[in-house]
């Protein structure tokens, strides 16, 4: 660590390089380094205890090992994740780390071995995206037994721009960020470019807002710059609220300085001296990391007055969100930031003209800001070489649901859904059939199998009735009822509607009520028409984008899975066997092996029978002259008392419990 007394504001590039050299020694020390993934995903899997255990072991055994923290390494499925970096050797990533395995790992390390069978992948070099170079790790020895990241399906097709430092650096170390090329883009922006030139580069790069709408970032900045006003603001929207989406959290937790640097560049470009980061209340760790980062950047003079001696000044403040999904909407966010109720207003006069405190305001989300420094450093042409026709660069997706490898993946736009789900995601859990993928969060749509080969970008997703949104990707298998999915999302949205306008407040609630009726088998055919009318009025006449997109889960499932709605309504049947009111469980007496596990696990004790040898087998044995033993009675479910929880179905070892 660098002592506070040694810190003085950085004014020149050589001074920045001095700090980079110190940072590099922290990143790649001349002794063994263990990195533990301590992002929220890691903590949830017990990484904090693991870290404590490791540090205890290192101390007890007096090992010459540096223990360090990093944030999300990406493969959340295998948390807790630990990386081992031996000087001159490949760095090796281990997953599913436990206290016992940590001991094993340290033992192996002392013996100079790697445990190949529990290693996920190895890195022989670290790509430095900013400098377009690599830092060689395996200069002396390549760990051949462990596959390289380039052969690891989860990582091989990824290209990390927004997450370039996530899982590599210690987020609390500004030195490590600078060692990876950090704050060079800010220096370049302030010393080599005029604000208009910055906007020109961002415009030409084709960068589009990563928070949902996909609005061209350059155009947004240009309008804000042109707006006549003395005071302007830039805001980072970190109110990531989509269920199952957590890319912004990971960037804030893993690489907070990339967001600060992006914000400072943006503030310079549009002419603002104040920036705010609005972080949702549920992200305490992200707020802590970003606060530490601001403190450090201020100490080094990279945020604050007269940055790099250029006369440009910017302050960055952190604001805790109020815990409402709607505050991710720009006008609601600004209202909340001002201390008013987080409620959207009509946006005919855009926030770039009149936003926060009625001043011109540029708002972008975390991922967008994190992209900015790289674009400034590498140039517009570099970004346009990545991605698809209308969507340049990469997008981070949180791949969740019924897929083998869940986690955060950053891929060039234009990649197909199939590549994401089957190559990176490893296919459907338990090798079941793929049914649909929900993209764009609750306001997105469900895309069926026939579109698996479509390229994923802003425009293509909109064409099939979904959207990019913030990049949530929920994979669903054959055992998912699409009416139930629509009901789930509408339940979320009706609750998160601010309630200001009639269609969103009343319409979403009514749509939810109808979906409940359908799931309970109590809907009439006329309800489907009413549902479509309501979806139409909510979509067309709601005040803000929350309302305008809220019917998407209903509209997209109606578009691709209408037969499921009809089966629920007409035949009172749930084809996927999910909606409890429409299914029954029964035990096939021929298949029942009379083990009694179903009866034991049943929470309402509605299954009866007698444990023992199945009668059929007993008869057979008797014929063969074998000992008869204790004869059982096939188990039966009392349909009146059954709550249809499905436990019997899940525990039956003989597949004798049938769902219909």
């Amino acid at each position: 660590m660098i002592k506070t007394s040694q810190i003085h504001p950085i004014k020149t590039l050589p001074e920045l390089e001095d700090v980079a050299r110190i940072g590099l020694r922290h990143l790649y020390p001349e002794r063994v380094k263990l990195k533990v993934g301590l992002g929220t995903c890691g903590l949830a899997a017990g990484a904090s205890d693991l870290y404590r255990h490791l540090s205890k072991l290192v101390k007890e055994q007096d090992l010459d090992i540096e223990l360090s923290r990093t944030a999300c390494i990406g493969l959340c499925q295998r948390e807790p994740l630990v990386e081992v970096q031996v000087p001159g050797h490949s760095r090796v990533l281990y997953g599913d780390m436990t206290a016992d395995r940590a001991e094993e790992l340290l033992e192996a390390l002392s013996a100079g071995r790697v445990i190949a069978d529990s290693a996920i992948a190895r890195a022989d070099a670290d790509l430095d995206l900013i400098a377009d170079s690599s830092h060689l790790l395996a200069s002396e020895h390549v760990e051949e037994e462990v596959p390289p990241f380039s052969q690891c399906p989860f990582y091989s097709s990824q290209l990390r721009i927004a997450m370039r430092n996530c899982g590599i650096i210690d987020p609390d170390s500004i030195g490590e960020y600078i060692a990876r090329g950090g704050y060079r883009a800010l220096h370049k922006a302030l010393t080599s470019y005029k604000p208009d030139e910055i906007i020109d580069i961002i415009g030409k790069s084709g960068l589009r807002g990563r928070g949902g709408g996909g609005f061209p970032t350059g155009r947004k900045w240009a309008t804000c710059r042109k707006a006549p006003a003395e005071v302007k603001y830039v805001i980072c929207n970190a109110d990531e609220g989509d269920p199952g989406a957590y890319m912004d959290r990971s960037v804030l937790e893993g690489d907070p300085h990339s967001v600060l640097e992006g914000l400072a560049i943006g503030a310079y470009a549009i002419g603002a001296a104040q920036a705010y980061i609005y972080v949702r209340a549920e992200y305490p760790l992200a707020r802590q990391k970003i606060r530490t980062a601001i403190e450090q950047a201020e100490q080094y003079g990279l945020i604050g007055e007269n940055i790099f001696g250029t006369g440009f000044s910017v302050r960055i403040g952190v604001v805790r969100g109020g815990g409402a999904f709607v505050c991710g909407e720009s006008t609601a966010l600004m209202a909340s930031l001002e201390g008013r109720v987080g409620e959207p207003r009509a946006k005919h006069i855009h926030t770039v003209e009149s936003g926060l405190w009625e001043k011109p305001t540029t708002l972008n989300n975390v991922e967008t800001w994190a992209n900015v420094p790289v674009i400034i450093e590498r140039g517009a042409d570099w970004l346009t070489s990545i991605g698809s026709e209308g969507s340049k660069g990469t997008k981070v997706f949180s791949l969740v649901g019924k897929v083998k490898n869940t986690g955060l993946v950053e891929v060039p736009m234009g990649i197909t859904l199939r590549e994401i789900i089957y190559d990176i995601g490893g296919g459907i859990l338990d090798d079941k059939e793929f049914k649909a993928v929900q993209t764009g969060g609750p306001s997105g749509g469900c895309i069926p199998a026939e579109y698996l080969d479509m390229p994923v970008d802003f425009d293509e997703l909109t064409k099939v009735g979904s959207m990019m949104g913030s990049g949530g990707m929920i994979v669903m298998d054959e055992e998912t009822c699409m009416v139930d999915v629509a009901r789930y999302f509408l339940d979320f949205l009706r609750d998160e509607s601010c309630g200001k306008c009639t269609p969103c407040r009343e319409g979403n609630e009514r749509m939810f009520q109808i979906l409940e009726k359908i799931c309970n088998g109590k809907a009439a055919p006329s309800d489907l028409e009413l549902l479509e009318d309501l979806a139409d009025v909510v979509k067309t006449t709601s005040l803000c984008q929350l309302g305008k997109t809220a019917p998407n889960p209903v509209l997209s499932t109606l578009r691709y899975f209408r037969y499921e709605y009809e089966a629920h309504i007409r035949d009172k049947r749930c084809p996927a066997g999910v909606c409890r009111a429409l299914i029954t469980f029964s035990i096939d007496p021929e298949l029942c092996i009379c083990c009694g596990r179903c009866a034991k696990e049943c929470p309402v004790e509605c299954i009866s029978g007698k444990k023992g040898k199945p009668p059929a087998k007993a008869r057979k044995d008797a014929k063969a002259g074998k000992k008869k033993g204790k004869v059982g009675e096939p188990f039966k479910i009392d349909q009146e008392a059954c709550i249809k929880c499905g436990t019997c179905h899940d525990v039956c070892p003989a597949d004798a419990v049938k769902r219909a």
Partner: protein
Amino acid sequence: MPTINLTIDGNPVSCEKDTMLLEVALANGYDIPHLCYHHAEAPYGACRLCLVEITQGRWNWVEASCTYPVRDEGIEVKTNSEKVRRYRRLNAELLLARCPASEVVRELARSLGVEEGRLPPDGKDKCILCGLCVGVCNELVGVGAISFVGRGPARRVAVPFDEPSEVCIGCGACAEVCPTGHIVAREAEGQREIVPFRTMHRLVPCPECGRGYVTEKQLEFLKARLGPKSDVLTGCALCKGRTRAAELKRVYESLTPEEEVMDVS
């Protein structure tokens, strides 16, 4: 302010730039239903009944006219197209199911072609959450006794903790702007009650006729604001009108015929 030209239902109309479309239409005699708009308050855009269809070049969309500032030359506005009627009707159907007890909502729904809605009525109260009362209390009167609480379906207008408000001055402005009759200022036995909020206020009797004409708190509030000019507050409007009329009569009768002619001119 520059002038913008547009057409409403095919007729040319012009207005100052950034005037709200609903105001332009109403000023030009077009009848557009609305519940959450009041000329004295900032437009809020909650009820979504003042929908119109706008065509601008190749774009065509449905918009709430109360919050739509007219900025672009040559937009074509339709106030009564098939599309507009459909969406107004659907929103009216939603409001009717929410407030079946409100005559105003029922009448409005009927005028849009909804006799019996398809949705099961909620039967809560007559509040459509238009926000006019909250706006007038906070922005115009400047008291802030009521506010929206809750979110989504749980949203409602309330006083803090649903206790009779300490800061309410009982002016009754909320009841005055309420379009559906949900908020009522009821007066009996020298007291005024702002009904759904259970706040009671003592009325100050008029020195002339003895009728309560202002609440004690409102009088205090206004006196603090008007300072030395607060004399104008004495006496009820009726008596003040009567005194003024008597005064006028006296002046009129004392005039000579010549003066009378001069006065008229």
